[in-house]
């Protein structure tokens, strides 16, 4: 099994290199890269799935030519599960990318994009199987940098470069915490082999807490917890859409994986870790969805929803920890299972949505929601799949998003009912948080889907939009089908997740019951049946009756124009007005004045509070402080000599004072 996984990794790297070698011709590079990626992903996904279902645990060691660590990779349920996610979503994105990049062929060298894409997938796979700190960190860095180069693929664009820089800063500052984390963990044994780290039944409590916080920040930066998510809404829109799908679909989940993997080293978790994770999750979820509502850039909106969904995942994991720390297997299992299943689900529908956004960008040439509209009749497949994705991401039945959120809800209710009061409150906090997140998400996606695809086109570009190519449509359809499948057959999905969840809560014995999942299937089927029934009824009723078409009723307004439609901004306004205090909004208005007002305008810029109130000022301050040092290098030879003299005298006095007789 493990060998096959490594084989597919090797295949990815090989195709990446091949793509570069034939880089002269874009077509060849495109086909080689895409085919290689799709094949190896298909192989990897099937193998990982098989390994997961068979609960395979195998490992492989090799010596390392350098003085640190040794090459150690292994499979366990957790790795296998994340491998399934990685390969599944990557495969879809790669296939989509084949079509998406085809549009760029000739305009720009494609070989780098394909190279970095395959390297990114490979590095993610290695991250999940690595069992040695050094190897893990190397794969991690490879992941960061390949994705960085993908973000700056269209590097001639200013915003892409700035996004890349922000991303680089975030990932590098974040990785500091990880280096420190692993160095601290390996402090005692001097080796970074995960077995030894894990075997030592967790470090002392104090160190464990430090490590947990380090992991929270370090991995949270990649995962996109609020407020260290700041790179995310810039990077995802800048990247090519299939890359955004990959990054948002699985790459940020590597942060979750790392966090979970680290938890395995830290011994039995104190209960406050769970509480903290729940808090982080709730805050990230709400902040993410609120900022998403404020966006008018389709891909930016989706990026903020990644923050939201990471929040939901974290809620689940927090619940799991809460249960685990109290020895409450059921809550632990439900929490972990819900979180993990949401990892998979989010990978599926967020990938699907980003691909849809990519098709919109590719078909209508803009990502600005306000200048789209009425795309449904121009790109029906994209629109329908996007609708499926939207319903799924809002967690509505009968699609997959509902299943994972349902598990988390059940876990929260169980926890509230069975945990000791002090911690039960934390469990119950998850419930209204999820509810509010869900409601806002629904609002946000009604806005996104409705304004982009429904109504009348607001601009020429939107009116001239065309449907995506076949190669782009296929993966979207497949993704939509998978969303529906998981939604209608939760039992199967949970069977995939269960081993990993049990592994996390290191539960021995039978996997606890996740509740009557078949009942969800029943509800879903009944729902679809009712829809079909009513649809049929409608047809029957309308048969033989007069069905005519007319203009939308504009309250008898004579000359309606598409510009009069409700915009995304106005749609979101009531909610944003409610939450104005927590969103950084800058209003720039010039009201009409005088007897003959020349012009009046009203602009509202909704920024990111974490960025514009916290991180940006901090960075500026650091840079200013550093630039103060420049005073010392001001060109005078004499001054430089003074430095030498002063250093000499100071050091002499320091070292010699007291040594005299």
């Amino acid at each position, binding site marked *: 099994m493990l060998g096959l996984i490594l084989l597919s990794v090797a295949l990815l790297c090989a195709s990446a290199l091949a793509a570069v070698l034939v880089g002269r011709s874009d077509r060849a590079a495109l086909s080689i890269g895409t085919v290689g990626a799709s094949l190896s992903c298909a192989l990897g996904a099937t193998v990982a799935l098989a390994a997961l279902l068979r609960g395979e645990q195998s490992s492989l060691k090799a010596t390392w030519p350098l003085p640190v660590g040794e090459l150690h990779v292994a499979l366990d349920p957790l790795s296998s599960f994340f491998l399934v996610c990685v390969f599944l979503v990557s495969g879809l994105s790669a296939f989509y990318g084949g079509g998406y990049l085809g549009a760029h062929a000739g305009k720009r060298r494609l070989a780098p994009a394909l190279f970095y894409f395959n390297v990114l997938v490979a590095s993610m796979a290695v991250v999940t199987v690595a069992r040695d700190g050094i190897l893990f960190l190397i794969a991690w860095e490879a992941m960061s940098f390949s994705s960085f180069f993908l973000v700056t693929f269209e590097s001639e664009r200013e915003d892409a470069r700035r996004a890349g820089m922000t991303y680089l800063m975030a990932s590098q500052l974040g990785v500091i915490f990880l280096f420190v984390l692993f160095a601290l963990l390996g402090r005692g044994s001097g080796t970074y082999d995960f077995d030894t780290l894990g075997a030592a039944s967790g470090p002392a409590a104090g160190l464990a807490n430090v490590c947990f916080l380090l992991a929270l920040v370090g991995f949270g930066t990649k995962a996109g917890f609020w407020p260290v998510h700041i790179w995310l809404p810039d990077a995802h829109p800048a990247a090519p859409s299939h890359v955004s799908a990959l990054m948002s679909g699985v790459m940020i989940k590597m942060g979750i994986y790392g966090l979970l993997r680290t938890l395995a080293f830290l011994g039995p978790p104190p209960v406050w870790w769970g509480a903290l994770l729940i808090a982080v999750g709730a805050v990230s979820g709400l902040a993410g969805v609120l900022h998403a509502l404020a966006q008018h850039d389709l891909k930016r909106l989706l990026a903020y929803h990644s923050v939201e969904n990471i929040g939901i995942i974290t809620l689940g994991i927090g619940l799991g920890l809460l249960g685990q720390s109290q020895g409450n297997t059921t809550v632990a299992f439900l929490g972990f299972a819900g979180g993990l299943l949401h990892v998979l689900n989010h990978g599926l529908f967020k990938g699907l949505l980003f691909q849809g956004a990519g098709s919109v960008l590719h078909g209508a040439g803009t990502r600005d929601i306000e200048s789209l509209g009425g795309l449904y009749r121009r790109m029906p497949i994209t629109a329908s799949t996007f*609708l499926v994705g939207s319903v799924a991401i809002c967690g509505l039945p009968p699609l997959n998003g509902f299943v994972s959120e349902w598990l988390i809800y059940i876990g929260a209710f169980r926890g509230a009912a069975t945990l000791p009061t002090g911690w039960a409150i934390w469990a119950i906090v998850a419930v209204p948080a999820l509810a509010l997140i869900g409601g806002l998400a*629904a609002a946000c996606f009604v806005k996104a889907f409705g304004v982009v695809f429904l109504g*009348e086109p607001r601009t020429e570009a939107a009116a001239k939009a065309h449907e995506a190519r076949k190669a782009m449509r296929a993966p979207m359809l497949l993704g939509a089908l998978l969303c529906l499948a998981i939604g209608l057959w939760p039992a199967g999905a949970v069977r995939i997740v269960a081993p990993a969840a049990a592994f996390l809560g290191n539960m021995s014995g039978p996997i606890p019951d996740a509740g*009557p999942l078949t009942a969800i299937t029943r509800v879903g089927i009944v729902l679809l049946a*009712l829809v079909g029934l009513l649809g049929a009824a409608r047809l029957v009723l309308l048969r033989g009756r007069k069905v005519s*078409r007319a203009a939308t009723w504009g309250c008898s307004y004579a000359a309606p124009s598409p510009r009069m439609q409700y915009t995304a901004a106005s749609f979101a306004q009531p909610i944003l007005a409610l939450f104005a205090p927590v969103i950084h909004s800058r209003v720039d208005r010039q009201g009409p004045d005088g007897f003959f007002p020349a012009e009046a305008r009203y602009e509202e810029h909704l920024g990111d509070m974490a960025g514009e109130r916290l991180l940006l000022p901090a960075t500026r301050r650091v840079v200013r402080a550093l630039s103060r040092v420049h005073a010392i290098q001001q060109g005078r030879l004499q001054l430089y000599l003074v430095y030498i003299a002063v250093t000499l005298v100071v050091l002499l006095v320091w070292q010699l004072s007291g040594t005299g007789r």
Partner: protein
Amino acid sequence: MLDLIVHAALLLAVPPLLLGVINKTKAWFAGRLGPPLLQPYRDVWKLLRKGAVYSRSTTWVFRAGPIVSLAAVLCAGLVLPLAANRSPLGFSGDVIVFAYLLGLGRFFTMAAALDTGSSFEGMGASREAAFSALAEPALFLSMAILCVPARSVTFEGAFGALPWTTWGFEHPTYLAAALSLFAVLLAENSRIPVDDPNTHLELTMVHEVMVLDHGGPDFGFVLYGSAVKLFVIGALLVHILLPIPAGGGWRAIALLCGGEIGVAMFIGVVESIMARLRLPRVPQFLVGAAVLASIGLAALFYRGAP
């Protein structure tokens, strides 16, 4: 089998009646004679037999809206126990399905509204989105009040655990739950003080304006759907307020219908004696409901009920 038939019959037959009751009550308060009690049935029947006019800018989403939302509320009605503690689709965790089914219906109603491209309907959708998002926490918190002490995630368990012998100030938490559920009911069914179902100025509407363009059978579905929604949430409320025997039977049916009618009359009274709130104040109403429910929950934990 019999249970199922009874359940379906109640679910399908009773709802329009409630609308009639409300209108009657309001008419009585206003000193008018008012429309006949069964008028809503006639309206629906009439609409179902009409043709339809569709806007040129609409797609199948517009047509799907009423269907999906009606299907969703009917499904929710099948999940919720009506005249007995058992429901056809009930299972451990059905509370959540219930809430999310309502959400599904709302999603498609709003999408359909945006499909027409009319600014009025967009406006309505946006308000609906805001209010319903705020109503969600209240709904879930009050359900938590029901579920946590029962140590169960099913309506069946929750209702079974309701302490009938001593009610009221012994268990203020249930009172809180009932009140915030009632607020949710008003919001979900676009009733005064949240929304005025028969206002005449589109600018002030919330729900009605979303369905301006629907006509014929579609509008029939919409009308019927809102009635069913009212009935379903009302049933949830009735289960909290009245001791409906777990085994079902005539007495249960009578209690349910009586309770529903009582709720409808109460709504009528509220609509008659209250003015609708200004739109900016509606959120406060809903947040207030959520706060009430969370206070109840806090009290629950304070008393260490679980």
